[in-house]
């Protein structure tokens, strides 16, 4: 075991903020926009994606010395598709309503660039444990992003959170936030907010 196998806290937290797959790397945006009309959907999607990230990362890392370079992408895709299919059936078994709300987007995790990207850039070069921890971090970052959108969209658009009413009765819901345009606007809002925070940090750093 070389030094690079050491698992640091950073292996995990990397995906949360500094390399957040959505806000920083702008990957996997389709599900981010499509399924975040409620917080519950966002959470489920995030968990499913994390599951696939962790499992495929583990398997790819295990097999990294076995798979020849020429067929690695094909192999990764098959491995990922396998876990996505598993997630698909598991969700059906857990709740049909959830399954219907997420629609085809569970299956579309296959083409989510985050996962193939992690397999190619990280899992294929690191040990299984590290790959799992990193995958979990990335998945958590992705879930965080999904929830950022989901919470705002559900609270403003329906006046509720995880299906429970949180706004007073008189509150007028802004249905645009659960409609397609709202998804774009809320994501744009978060991007601007994070860009602004980053800039403040940079400026603050310089001033200090």
């Amino acid at each position: 075991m070389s030094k690079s196998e050491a698992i640091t806290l950073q292996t995990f937290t990397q995906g949360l903020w500094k390399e957040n797959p959505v806000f920083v790397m702008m990957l996997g945006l389709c599900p981010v926009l499509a399924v975040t009309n409620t917080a519950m959907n966002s959470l489920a999607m995030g968990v499913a994606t994390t599951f696939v990230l962790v499992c495929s990362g583990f398997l790819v890392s295990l097999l990294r010395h076995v798979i020849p370079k020429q067929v690695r992408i094909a192999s990764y895709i098959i491995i990922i598709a396998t876990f996505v299919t598993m997630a698909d059936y598991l969700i059906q078994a857990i709740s049909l309503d959830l399954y219907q709300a997420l629609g085809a987007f569970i299956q579309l995790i296959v083409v989510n660039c985050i996962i193939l990207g992690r397999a190619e850039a990280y899992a294929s070069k690191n040990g299984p444990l590290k790959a799992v921890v990193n995958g979990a971090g990335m998945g958590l970052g992705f879930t965080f992003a999904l929830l950022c959108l989901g919470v705002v969209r559900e609270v403003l658009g329906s006046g509720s959170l995880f299906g429970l009413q949180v706004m007073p009765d008189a509150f007028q819901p802004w249905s645009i936030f659960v409609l397609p345009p709202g998804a774009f606007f809320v994501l744009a809002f978060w991007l601007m907010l994070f860009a602004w925070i980053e800039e403040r940090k940079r400026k603050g750093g310089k001033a200090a």
Partner: protein
Amino acid sequence: MNPGSAPAIFLDAFLINNFVLAMFLGICPFLGVSGKVKTAGNMGMAVTFVMIVSSLCAFGINKLLVRYDLEFLRLICFIAVIASAVQLVEMTIKKFSPALFRALGIFLPLITTNCAILGLALFQTAREYSLVQSIAFSLGAGAGFSLALLLMAGLREKLDLADLPGVARGAALTLILAGMLSLAFMGFAGLGG
């Protein structure tokens, strides 16, 4: 119009439930390749083309899988077959029409791992479309994707010459534009109903 008719399906994927603006499929290329009108046009063509190919493939495979009761392998087969079909098409084009390859070629490998393509295959299967319906669906989806991409590219080219405020740089600008396009496309709701 009968909702199951081919024109209705085409119109639905093209305008009413636009693949990009209402269904959120293919957002990555939509954000990434919409900087220049010319590239956007080529990308639109390439995507439409791949959509038709993969729609046909998916239709055939699904028939086979259903026949042998192997639906649970659907996803794995779809992704594998679409990827190889596009690869094959790419090689064919490269061989027979270098000009077309220059226009479409660089996009083809990118497109394969794009939700719009797989999404199309999955949706047409879930909705149990016939062959004709599937073709109408893929044409509509391709046209819808191209239209959204071209409009976006036009707007972004125009805004290249604007005095944008600091917050409006980069992805946020594109997303706000996409939101407004999506708002405008809401006008098509219920068309032909």
